[in-house]
């Protein structure tokens, strides 16, 4: 339920940011739209059993800033390799343990890995993560577990 409530809050923000017309008519239509979507989202969750869930909102900006730094650093590394050519690659598949409990944290971790170029999550399941890394350095960067710890701390 908490997930659904934060979904509604985010939907309201989305409407207000997109709209730019704050007349009674459009605000009313906005309210009806948000309620309709929330109703449908609730129905979907009731049908498939997956309720929207996520980290506490105040912890998100800190993680995003950290992730942004990682993304830029990883991009620079891959850019260098692009211009040096395939000889600079040493691609490999590595397995990582998946230490998060909740599904959203596992998905967030997996997508954060893919979002930093140089590493792509290939498979997930059975408490493990299969990652394709472009180089030894990229694989080692994941193996040290800094990102996993950050995502885990969001869970608490």
């Amino acid at each position, binding site marked *: 339920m908490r997930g659904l409530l934060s979904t509604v809050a985010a939907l309201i923000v989305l409407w207000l940011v997109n709209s730019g017309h704050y007349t009674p008519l459009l605000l009313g239509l906005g309210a009806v739209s948000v309620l309709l979507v929330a109703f449908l989202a609730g129905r979907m969750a009731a049908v498939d059993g997956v309720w929207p869930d996520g980290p506490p909102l105040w912890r998100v900006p800190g993680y995003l800033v950290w992730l942004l730094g990682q993304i830029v650093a990883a991009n620079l590394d891959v850019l260098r390799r692009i211009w040096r050519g395939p000889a600079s690659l040493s691609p490999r598949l590595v397995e990582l343990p998946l230490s998060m409990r909740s599904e959203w944290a596992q998905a967030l971790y997996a997508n954060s890995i*893919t979002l930093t*170029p140089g590493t792509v999550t290939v498979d997930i399941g059975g408490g493990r993560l299969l990652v394709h890394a472009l180089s030894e350095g990229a694989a080692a960067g994941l193996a040290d577990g800094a990102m996993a710890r950050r995502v885990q701390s969001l869970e608490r």
Partner: protein
Amino acid sequence: MSAVVDGLAWAAIGLGVFVCFSGAFGLLRFPDFYSRLHAAGVTDTLGAGLVLLGLMLQAGWSLAAAKLALILLFAWVSGPTASHVLARAARHDGLEPWTGAEGRRR
């Protein structure tokens, strides 16, 4: 808009275009499907990010800038998911990754 902000905006857009171009170049240059995904990731993340940052600087403190930020957020959520789905489909189809010079020698 001040000349400084305008200059920064164009610098970001120019840099973003260069990064996107590099990503496309890598897409052609890298040896196999999986490594090409990384090159595409460069375009998706930093390339798109820099171009949108430039546009946000041009838009100034307005709703347009907020919408551009939303676009970036959307791209950063959907992009890696798509990359992952592609990689997973390739793996399940039995496509083996290229492992570089050592792999070829073996």
